[in-house]
Protein backbone atom coordinates (compact mmCIF):
# COMPACT_ATOMS: atom_id res chain seq x y z
CA UNK A 1 0.00 0.00 0.00
CA UNK A 2 1.29 3.46 -0.92
CA UNK A 3 1.12 6.71 1.11
CA UNK A 4 -1.68 8.00 -1.12
CA UNK A 5 -3.72 4.80 -0.82
CA UNK A 6 -3.44 4.85 2.96
CA UNK A 7 -4.36 8.53 3.04
CA UNK A 8 -7.53 7.81 1.06
CA UNK A 9 -8.48 5.00 3.43
CA UNK A 10 -7.40 6.77 6.64
CA UNK A 11 -10.94 7.52 7.91
CA UNK A 12 -12.16 4.04 7.08
CA UNK A 13 -9.15 2.58 8.90
CA UNK A 14 -9.83 4.64 12.03
CA UNK A 15 -13.55 3.85 11.96
CA UNK A 16 -12.83 0.14 11.50
CA UNK A 17 -14.56 -0.10 8.14
CA UNK A 18 -11.74 -1.76 6.18
CA UNK A 19 -11.94 -5.41 5.27
CA UNK A 20 -9.32 -7.80 6.61
CA UNK A 21 -7.06 -7.64 3.54
CA UNK A 22 -7.03 -3.83 3.39
CA UNK A 23 -6.51 -3.61 7.12
CA UNK A 24 -3.51 -5.95 7.03
CA UNK A 25 -1.99 -4.00 4.14
CA UNK A 26 -2.51 -0.70 5.95
CA UNK A 27 -0.94 -1.99 9.15
CA UNK A 28 2.02 -3.37 7.25
CA UNK A 29 2.57 0.03 5.66
CA UNK A 30 2.20 1.83 8.98
CA UNK A 31 4.87 -0.37 10.58
CA UNK A 32 7.46 0.95 8.16
CA UNK A 33 6.18 4.51 7.54
CA UNK A 34 6.57 7.10 10.26
CA UNK A 35 4.99 9.86 8.13
CA UNK A 36 1.76 7.89 7.77
CA UNK A 37 1.77 7.06 11.49
CA UNK A 38 1.99 10.81 12.26
CA UNK A 39 -0.73 11.52 9.74
CA UNK A 40 -3.04 8.96 11.39
CA UNK A 41 -2.18 10.38 14.82
CA UNK A 42 -3.19 13.87 13.66
CA UNK A 43 -6.38 12.53 12.15
CA UNK A 44 -7.28 10.68 15.35
CA UNK A 45 -6.79 13.90 17.28
CA UNK A 46 -9.12 15.78 14.94
CA UNK A 47 -11.81 13.18 15.50
CA UNK A 48 -11.37 13.41 19.26
CA UNK A 49 -11.52 17.18 19.09
CA UNK A 50 -14.75 17.08 17.08
CA UNK A 51 -16.34 14.57 19.45
CA UNK A 52 -15.34 16.66 22.46
CA UNK A 53 -16.77 19.82 20.93
CA UNK A 54 -19.97 20.64 22.80
CA UNK A 55 -23.03 22.09 21.20
CA UNK A 56 -23.21 25.83 21.52
CA UNK A 57 -26.34 27.08 23.21
CA UNK A 58 -28.24 29.65 21.18
CA UNK A 59 -29.45 32.82 22.89
CA UNK A 60 -32.67 32.24 24.89
CA UNK A 61 -34.53 34.89 22.90
CA UNK A 62 -33.83 33.21 19.57
CA UNK A 63 -36.81 30.82 19.60
CA UNK A 64 -39.33 33.52 20.65
CA UNK A 65 -37.87 35.80 17.99
CA UNK A 66 -38.32 33.17 15.28
CA UNK A 67 -41.83 32.44 16.55
CA UNK A 68 -42.71 36.10 16.23
CA UNK A 69 -41.22 36.19 12.74
CA UNK A 70 -43.20 33.14 11.62
CA UNK A 71 -46.56 32.85 13.39
CA UNK A 72 -46.54 36.36 14.88
CA UNK A 73 -47.70 37.16 18.37
CA UNK A 74 -49.48 34.02 19.49
CA UNK A 75 -52.95 34.30 21.07
CA UNK A 76 -52.50 33.55 24.75
CA UNK A 77 -54.48 30.76 26.37
CA UNK A 78 -56.66 31.42 29.43
CA UNK A 79 -54.10 29.85 31.76
CA UNK A 80 -51.28 31.94 30.28
CA UNK A 81 -53.38 35.10 30.64
CA UNK A 82 -54.16 34.35 34.27
CA UNK A 83 -50.52 33.62 35.05
CA UNK A 84 -49.47 36.79 33.19
CA UNK A 85 -51.99 38.80 35.25
CA UNK A 86 -50.66 37.49 38.56
CA UNK A 87 -47.00 37.44 37.54
CA UNK A 88 -46.25 40.95 38.91
CA UNK A 89 -47.73 39.95 42.29
CA UNK A 90 -45.35 37.04 42.76
CA UNK A 91 -42.71 39.24 44.33
CA UNK A 92 -41.35 39.35 47.89
CA UNK A 93 -41.91 43.09 48.21
CA UNK A 94 -45.65 42.65 47.61
CA UNK A 95 -45.84 39.98 50.32
CA UNK A 96 -43.97 42.37 52.62
CA UNK A 97 -46.41 45.19 51.82
CA UNK A 98 -49.43 42.94 52.47
CA UNK A 99 -47.95 41.78 55.78
CA UNK A 100 -47.33 45.40 56.82
CA UNK A 101 -50.88 46.39 55.85
CA UNK A 102 -52.34 43.55 57.91
CA UNK A 103 -50.15 44.48 60.85
CA UNK A 104 -51.12 48.18 60.62
CA UNK A 105 -54.80 47.30 60.38
CA UNK A 106 -54.61 45.07 63.45
CA UNK A 107 -52.86 47.87 65.39
CA UNK A 108 -55.58 50.36 64.36
CA UNK A 109 -58.36 47.92 65.32
CA UNK A 110 -56.77 47.30 68.71
CA UNK A 111 -56.27 51.01 69.30
CA UNK A 112 -59.89 51.71 68.38
CA UNK A 113 -60.99 49.13 70.95
CA UNK A 114 -62.79 47.00 68.41
CA UNK A 115 -63.05 43.35 69.10
CA UNK A 116 -63.38 41.18 66.06
CA UNK A 117 -64.73 38.36 68.23
CA UNK A 118 -67.86 40.37 69.00
CA UNK A 119 -68.66 41.07 65.39
CA UNK A 120 -72.17 39.92 64.53
CA UNK A 121 -73.91 39.40 61.23
CA UNK A 122 -75.75 42.69 61.71
CA UNK A 123 -72.39 44.50 61.89
CA UNK A 124 -71.65 43.37 58.39
CA UNK A 125 -74.78 45.03 57.01
CA UNK A 126 -73.82 48.18 55.04
CA UNK A 127 -76.96 49.97 56.34
CA UNK A 128 -75.65 49.55 59.88
CA UNK A 129 -72.27 50.87 58.81
CA UNK A 130 -73.97 53.95 57.44
CA UNK A 131 -76.08 54.40 60.58
CA UNK A 132 -73.05 54.03 62.85
CA UNK A 133 -70.95 56.41 60.77
CA UNK A 134 -73.78 58.98 60.72
CA UNK A 135 -74.27 58.73 64.47
CA UNK A 136 -70.56 58.98 65.17
CA UNK A 137 -70.30 62.01 62.92
CA UNK A 138 -73.16 63.81 64.65
CA UNK A 139 -71.83 62.99 68.09
CA UNK A 140 -68.41 64.25 67.13
CA UNK A 141 -69.92 67.47 65.83
CA UNK A 142 -72.04 68.00 68.96
CA UNK A 143 -69.07 67.34 71.22
CA UNK A 144 -66.89 69.75 69.28
CA UNK A 145 -69.63 72.42 69.43
CA UNK A 146 -70.04 72.00 73.19
CA UNK A 147 -66.32 72.10 73.71
CA UNK A 148 -66.15 75.34 71.76
CA UNK A 149 -68.87 77.04 73.86
CA UNK A 150 -67.30 75.82 77.08
CA UNK A 151 -64.00 77.19 75.97
CA UNK A 152 -65.65 80.54 75.30
CA UNK A 153 -67.02 80.66 78.86
CA UNK A 154 -63.63 79.80 80.30
CA UNK A 155 -61.91 82.49 78.27
CA UNK A 156 -64.55 85.00 79.27
CA UNK A 157 -64.04 84.21 82.94
CA UNK A 158 -60.28 84.40 82.59
CA UNK A 159 -60.53 87.80 80.93
CA UNK A 160 -62.79 89.03 83.69
CA UNK A 161 -60.29 87.81 86.26
CA UNK A 162 -57.49 89.70 84.50
CA UNK A 163 -59.63 92.79 84.34
CA UNK A 164 -60.47 92.65 88.05
CA UNK A 165 -56.88 92.04 89.06
CA UNK A 166 -55.72 95.07 87.15
CA UNK A 167 -58.35 97.38 88.84
CA UNK A 168 -57.02 97.29 92.47
CA UNK A 169 -53.57 98.45 91.33
CA UNK A 170 -54.79 102.13 91.13
CA UNK A 171 -56.01 102.42 94.74
CA UNK A 172 -52.78 100.70 95.92
CA UNK A 173 -50.74 103.46 94.30
CA UNK A 174 -52.77 106.05 96.21
CA UNK A 175 -52.63 104.07 99.45
CA UNK A 176 -49.46 105.66 100.98
CA UNK A 177 -51.25 109.04 101.08
CA UNK A 178 -54.18 107.73 103.17
CA UNK A 179 -53.89 106.48 106.67
CA UNK A 180 -54.98 102.92 106.96
CA UNK A 181 -57.99 102.54 109.21
CA UNK A 182 -57.35 100.52 112.32
CA UNK A 183 -59.16 97.21 112.56
CA UNK A 184 -58.28 95.76 109.08
CA UNK A 185 -59.63 96.35 105.67
CA UNK A 186 -63.29 96.90 104.94
CA UNK A 187 -65.42 96.36 101.92
CA UNK A 188 -65.21 100.02 101.14
CA UNK A 189 -61.40 99.89 101.07
CA UNK A 190 -61.34 97.05 98.51
CA UNK A 191 -64.51 97.20 96.49
CA UNK A 192 -63.00 94.83 93.87
CA UNK A 193 -62.69 92.06 96.46
CA UNK A 194 -66.39 91.34 96.45
CA UNK A 195 -66.45 91.39 92.68
CA UNK A 196 -63.51 88.97 92.58
CA UNK A 197 -65.32 86.65 94.92
CA UNK A 198 -68.40 86.77 92.78
CA UNK A 199 -66.38 86.04 89.63
CA UNK A 200 -64.66 83.15 91.34
CA UNK A 201 -68.08 81.83 92.21
CA UNK A 202 -69.09 82.26 88.60
CA UNK A 203 -65.96 80.43 87.46
CA UNK A 204 -66.62 77.55 89.78
CA UNK A 205 -70.18 77.44 88.52
CA UNK A 206 -68.93 77.46 84.92
CA UNK A 207 -66.42 74.74 85.70
CA UNK A 208 -69.24 72.79 87.26
CA UNK A 209 -71.38 73.25 84.18
CA UNK A 210 -68.39 72.27 81.98
CA UNK A 211 -67.91 69.08 83.98
CA UNK A 212 -71.63 68.42 83.83
CA UNK A 213 -71.71 68.87 80.07
CA UNK A 214 -68.70 66.58 79.73
CA UNK A 215 -70.44 63.98 81.81
CA UNK A 216 -73.56 64.35 79.71
CA UNK A 217 -71.58 63.86 76.50
CA UNK A 218 -69.92 60.77 77.93
CA UNK A 219 -73.33 59.42 78.79
CA UNK A 220 -74.56 60.04 75.29
CA UNK A 221 -71.47 58.21 73.98
CA UNK A 222 -72.11 55.18 76.07
CA UNK A 223 -75.74 55.14 74.91
Amino acid at each position, binding site marked *: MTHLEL*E*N*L*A*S*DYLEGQLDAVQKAAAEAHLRDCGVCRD*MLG*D*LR*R*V*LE*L*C*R*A*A*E*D*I*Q*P*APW*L*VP*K*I*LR*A*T*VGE*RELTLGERVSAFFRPTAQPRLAYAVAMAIFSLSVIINAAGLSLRNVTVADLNPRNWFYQANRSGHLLYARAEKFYYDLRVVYEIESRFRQLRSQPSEPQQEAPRQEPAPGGSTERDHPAGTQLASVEGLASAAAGSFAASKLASQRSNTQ
Partner: protein
Amino acid sequence: MDSDLELVRRCLKGDDSAWAILLQTHTRKIYNLCYRFTGRTAESEDLTQEVFIKIFQTLKTFDVGQGTFATWLNRVARNHLVDHYRRTKKDRLTASLDDEESGVLEEKPSAQAAPSVHVETRELKELLQRGLDKLSPDLREAVVLRDLQDLDYAEVAQVLGVPEGTVKSRINRGRLELARVLKRMEQVRGPAKAAGSEA
Protein backbone atom coordinates in the same frame (compact mmCIF):
# COMPACT_ATOMS: atom_id res chain seq x y z
CA MET B 1 -38.88 10.93 13.91
CA ASP B 2 -42.54 10.01 14.21
CA SER B 3 -43.17 12.82 16.63
CA ASP B 4 -41.69 15.27 14.12
CA LEU B 5 -44.08 14.00 11.45
CA GLU B 6 -47.01 14.35 13.79
CA LEU B 7 -45.93 17.87 14.66
CA VAL B 8 -45.56 18.74 10.99
CA ARG B 9 -49.08 17.47 10.33
CA ARG B 10 -50.42 19.57 13.17
CA CYS B 11 -48.49 22.58 11.87
CA LEU B 12 -50.07 22.16 8.47
CA LYS B 13 -53.49 22.20 10.14
CA GLY B 14 -52.60 25.56 11.66
CA ASP B 15 -51.53 24.46 15.14
CA ASP B 16 -49.05 27.11 16.25
CA SER B 17 -48.09 25.25 19.41
CA ALA B 18 -46.84 22.32 17.27
CA TRP B 19 -44.65 24.75 15.35
CA ALA B 20 -43.31 26.10 18.63
CA ILE B 21 -42.37 22.57 19.74
CA LEU B 22 -40.66 21.84 16.41
CA LEU B 23 -38.74 25.07 16.74
CA GLN B 24 -37.62 24.35 20.27
CA THR B 25 -36.54 20.84 19.29
CA HIS B 26 -34.41 21.75 16.30
CA THR B 27 -33.18 25.31 16.86
CA ARG B 28 -30.03 24.26 18.68
CA LYS B 29 -28.88 21.86 15.95
CA ILE B 30 -29.49 24.35 13.18
CA TYR B 31 -27.87 27.13 15.16
CA ASN B 32 -24.79 24.97 15.69
CA LEU B 33 -24.67 24.09 12.00
CA CYS B 34 -24.81 27.78 11.13
CA TYR B 35 -22.19 28.61 13.73
CA ARG B 36 -19.80 25.94 12.44
CA PHE B 37 -20.15 27.42 8.99
CA THR B 38 -19.82 31.08 9.86
CA GLY B 39 -17.96 31.14 13.16
CA ARG B 40 -19.93 34.23 14.21
CA THR B 41 -22.69 34.34 16.78
CA ALA B 42 -24.81 37.18 15.40
CA GLU B 43 -24.57 35.87 11.85
CA SER B 44 -25.54 32.38 13.03
CA GLU B 45 -28.60 33.73 14.81
CA ASP B 46 -29.73 35.59 11.71
CA LEU B 47 -29.13 32.54 9.53
CA THR B 48 -31.00 30.27 11.94
CA GLN B 49 -33.97 32.61 11.82
CA GLU B 50 -33.86 32.76 8.02
CA VAL B 51 -33.71 28.97 7.79
CA PHE B 52 -36.75 28.52 9.99
CA ILE B 53 -38.71 31.18 8.15
CA LYS B 54 -37.95 29.31 4.95
CA ILE B 55 -38.99 26.02 6.58
CA PHE B 56 -42.22 27.58 7.82
CA GLN B 57 -43.05 28.90 4.37
CA THR B 58 -42.24 25.64 2.57
CA LEU B 59 -43.54 23.17 5.12
CA LYS B 60 -46.20 22.01 2.66
CA THR B 61 -43.48 20.78 0.30
CA PHE B 62 -41.99 18.42 2.89
CA ASP B 63 -42.16 14.91 1.49
CA VAL B 64 -41.99 12.05 3.95
CA GLY B 65 -40.69 9.76 1.20
CA GLN B 66 -37.49 11.79 0.84
CA GLY B 67 -36.33 11.26 4.41
CA THR B 68 -36.96 12.44 7.93
CA PHE B 69 -37.93 15.97 8.89
CA ALA B 70 -34.50 16.46 10.48
CA THR B 71 -32.76 15.49 7.23
CA TRP B 72 -34.98 17.84 5.23
CA LEU B 73 -34.34 20.60 7.74
CA ASN B 74 -30.59 20.04 7.49
CA ARG B 75 -30.78 20.07 3.70
CA VAL B 76 -32.68 23.35 3.63
CA ALA B 77 -30.23 24.82 6.15
CA ARG B 78 -27.23 23.60 4.19
CA ASN B 79 -28.56 25.06 0.92
CA HIS B 80 -29.25 28.33 2.67
CA LEU B 81 -25.73 28.36 4.11
CA VAL B 82 -24.20 27.69 0.69
CA ASP B 83 -26.25 30.55 -0.78
CA HIS B 84 -25.14 32.75 2.09
CA TYR B 85 -21.53 31.71 1.56
CA ARG B 86 -21.69 32.66 -2.11
CA ARG B 87 -23.44 35.94 -1.33
CA THR B 88 -20.92 37.03 1.27
CA LYS B 89 -17.75 35.69 -0.31
CA LYS B 90 -16.51 39.15 -1.22
CA ASP B 91 -17.27 40.57 2.21
CA ARG B 92 -15.46 37.71 3.87
CA LEU B 93 -12.31 38.26 1.89
CA THR B 94 -12.13 41.83 3.19
CA ALA B 95 -13.25 41.01 6.73
CA SER B 96 -10.75 41.90 9.40
CA LEU B 97 -9.12 39.44 11.73
CA ASP B 98 -10.69 41.29 14.68
CA ASP B 99 -14.11 40.30 13.48
CA GLU B 100 -13.21 36.65 13.43
CA GLU B 101 -11.75 36.80 16.90
CA SER B 102 -14.75 38.60 18.36
CA GLY B 103 -17.02 35.95 16.88
CA VAL B 104 -15.13 33.22 18.66
CA LEU B 105 -14.82 35.07 21.93
CA GLU B 106 -18.56 35.47 22.26
CA GLU B 107 -18.88 31.86 23.34
CA LYS B 108 -19.73 31.42 27.00
CA PRO B 109 -18.04 28.65 28.99
CA SER B 110 -20.24 26.23 30.92
CA ALA B 111 -20.75 27.06 34.58
CA GLN B 112 -19.71 23.67 35.98
CA ALA B 113 -16.14 23.41 34.74
CA ALA B 114 -13.12 24.79 36.58
CA PRO B 115 -11.47 27.97 35.24
CA SER B 116 -8.42 26.14 33.87
CA VAL B 117 -10.72 23.69 32.07
CA HIS B 118 -12.68 26.68 30.73
CA VAL B 119 -9.57 28.15 29.21
CA GLU B 120 -8.43 24.88 27.71
CA THR B 121 -11.87 24.02 26.34
CA ARG B 122 -12.27 27.50 24.99
CA GLU B 123 -8.88 27.37 23.29
CA LEU B 124 -9.72 24.03 21.72
CA LYS B 125 -13.09 25.30 20.53
CA GLU B 126 -11.44 28.36 19.11
CA LEU B 127 -8.81 26.25 17.42
CA LEU B 128 -11.38 23.89 15.93
CA GLN B 129 -13.56 26.72 14.68
CA ARG B 130 -10.64 28.54 13.10
CA GLY B 131 -9.50 25.31 11.49
CA LEU B 132 -12.98 24.73 10.07
CA ASP B 133 -13.03 28.27 8.73
CA LYS B 134 -9.92 27.47 6.71
CA LEU B 135 -11.54 24.51 4.92
CA SER B 136 -13.29 24.83 1.59
CA PRO B 137 -17.13 24.87 1.93
CA ASP B 138 -17.53 21.40 0.38
CA LEU B 139 -15.17 19.77 2.84
CA ARG B 140 -16.34 21.87 5.77
CA GLU B 141 -20.01 21.00 5.39
CA ALA B 142 -19.19 17.30 5.09
CA VAL B 143 -17.03 17.31 8.22
CA VAL B 144 -19.50 19.42 10.19
CA LEU B 145 -22.48 17.25 9.31
CA ARG B 146 -20.65 14.01 10.04
CA ASP B 147 -18.40 14.83 12.99
CA LEU B 148 -20.18 17.72 14.69
CA GLN B 149 -23.83 17.11 13.83
CA ASP B 150 -23.47 13.33 14.21
CA LEU B 151 -25.27 12.39 10.99
CA ASP B 152 -24.37 9.07 9.42
CA TYR B 153 -22.96 8.84 5.87
CA ALA B 154 -26.35 8.13 4.30
CA GLU B 155 -27.93 11.15 6.00
CA VAL B 156 -25.04 13.40 4.99
CA ALA B 157 -25.44 12.13 1.41
CA GLN B 158 -29.15 12.99 1.56
CA VAL B 159 -28.49 16.45 2.93
CA LEU B 160 -25.76 17.24 0.44
CA GLY B 161 -27.51 15.57 -2.45
CA VAL B 162 -24.42 13.60 -3.54
CA PRO B 163 -23.60 9.88 -3.57
CA GLU B 164 -22.40 8.25 -0.38
CA GLY B 165 -18.99 7.49 -1.91
CA THR B 166 -18.45 11.18 -2.60
CA VAL B 167 -19.47 11.97 0.95
CA LYS B 168 -16.93 9.50 2.34
CA SER B 169 -14.22 10.94 0.16
CA ARG B 170 -15.07 14.52 1.17
CA ILE B 171 -15.17 13.67 4.84
CA ASN B 172 -11.80 11.92 4.66
CA ARG B 173 -10.21 14.80 2.76
CA GLY B 174 -11.82 17.32 5.08
CA ARG B 175 -10.47 15.60 8.17
CA LEU B 176 -6.97 15.33 6.70
CA GLU B 177 -7.05 18.97 5.70
CA LEU B 178 -8.33 19.98 9.13
CA ALA B 179 -5.54 17.97 10.78
CA ARG B 180 -2.93 19.77 8.66
CA VAL B 181 -4.45 23.17 9.37
CA LEU B 182 -4.60 22.56 13.10
CA LYS B 183 -1.02 21.34 13.16
CA ARG B 184 0.12 24.42 11.28
CA MET B 185 -1.82 26.70 13.61
CA GLU B 186 -0.34 25.05 16.68
CA GLN B 187 3.16 25.43 15.26
CA VAL B 188 2.50 29.12 14.77
CA ARG B 189 1.14 29.49 18.31
CA GLY B 190 4.31 27.97 19.76
CA PRO B 191 5.51 24.66 21.09
CA ALA B 192 4.48 25.43 24.65
CA LYS B 193 0.81 25.91 23.77
CA ALA B 194 0.93 22.90 21.48
CA ALA B 195 2.26 20.76 24.29
CA GLY B 196 -0.51 22.06 26.58
CA SER B 197 -3.25 21.25 24.13
CA GLU B 198 -1.73 17.82 23.44
CA ALA B 199 -2.02 17.05 27.15
